[in-house]
């Protein structure tokens, strides 16, 4: 172990290397490290935000789904009610119509019956009158008993 000028040369080399590292090595690496740390922090924050957003969106979609279901159920119920109502109304109107038709038919039948009766009565009375006429022709004047005949006609 001898001391010599190597010591001073080494001293100078020491500072030159340290200066080089300080100038060209340390700053870019430390900068990259800091930037990466920031990026990671930002990324984590973004992930956290994304998670919150997702939670919110999930909640909102659940709400929307539930709302939609409720609305659909309501619509179906309404439609069913309306359908029932329509059927009810149709039944009612059909019944009314049927009643009306039946009533009309009944009235017509009655009228027809009355008319038939009238005709029948007239034919019968005509027959009676004719019969009576033939009977009476021999004995009485038709004109003299026309008022009696009319009365009979009226009673038939």
């Amino acid at each position, binding site marked *: 172990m001898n001391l010599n000028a*190597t010591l001073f040369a080494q001293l100078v080399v020491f500072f030159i290397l340290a200066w080089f590292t300080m100038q060209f090595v340390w700053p870019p690496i430390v900068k990259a490290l800091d930037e990466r740390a920031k990026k990671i922090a930002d990324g984590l924050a973004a992930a956290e935000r994304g998670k919150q957003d997702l939670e919110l969106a999930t909640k909102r979609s659940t709400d929307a789904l539930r709302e939609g279901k409720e609305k659909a159920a309501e619509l179906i119920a309404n439609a069913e009610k309306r359908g029932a109502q329509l059927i009810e109304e149709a039944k009612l109107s059909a019944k009314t119509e049927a009643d009306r038709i039946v009533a009309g038919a009944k009235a017509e039948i009655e009228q027809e019956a009355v008319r038939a009766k009238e005709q029948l009565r007239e034919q019968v009375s005509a027959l009676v009158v004719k019969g009576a006429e033939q009977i009476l022709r021999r004995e009485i004047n038709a004109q003299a008993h026309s008022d009696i005949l009319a009365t009979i006609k009226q009673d038939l």
Partner: protein
Amino acid sequence: MAAGSAAPTSGEYIVHHLTHLNSTGHAQKSVIDWTVINIDTMFYSIVLGLATVFVLWLAARKATSGVPGRFQAAVEILVDMVSEQAKGIIHSAESRKFVSPLALTVFVWIFFMNAMDLLPVDLLPRIGEMFGIHYQRVVGTADLNAALGMSIGVLLVCIYYNIKIKGLGGWIHELFTAPFGSHPLLYPINFVMQMIEFVAKTVSHGMRLFGNMYAGELVFMLIALLGGTATVFGFVGHIIAGSIWAIFHILIITLQAFIFMMLTLVYVGQAHEAH
């Protein structure tokens, strides 16, 4: 020596391996001689220093905040480790702009220089010998000059921050009044204590690294000598001991680099604090 006809003795082998390739061409005679420079230490430390900044620069050049590749991630882990340590020790963000990169450089550079210890002890010296270079030591940090050079560098950084944070007057005031207090009689004692503290810090800082690596290198040489006996025992011993020591040394080289870096941060951190 080794190139001579006779095989070297154990002593000669060790001494040969512990001799630096310096500007004089032979082993340094006196303990301190500022006219001599170790060419091998300078070569390996500069090459590995350039490798350090090149590797780091490669990662820095393509550094993005996106998904990192394996290489970028590895360098980032290193940078982050140093950065976290620096944040815990030095509270001034302004100072960290220089001290953190300094600590990173020191860590990687020393790690690389220490890792040269894991190459077979004879590999590079033998290759050097083929090209006529007879002395070579490949582990930069096992040279006291390199270790002390770096620790003195840290000392200068400490003095710089002492003056920057406390002001020249404030620092001189601290040199005379801490640690025992402000009293004219205590001034010399305080000053002596401060000087001892600075010297002890710096010397222990450099010596710790040097001592560990020097000892490690020496053990590798002894293990190589064991194999050099060319007996069954020596061969098996070399393999077993060499494997164990190399595996253990993986820990040592990393640990020593880490300790040097941490102490750099601690000393610079202390320079920021008023006593």
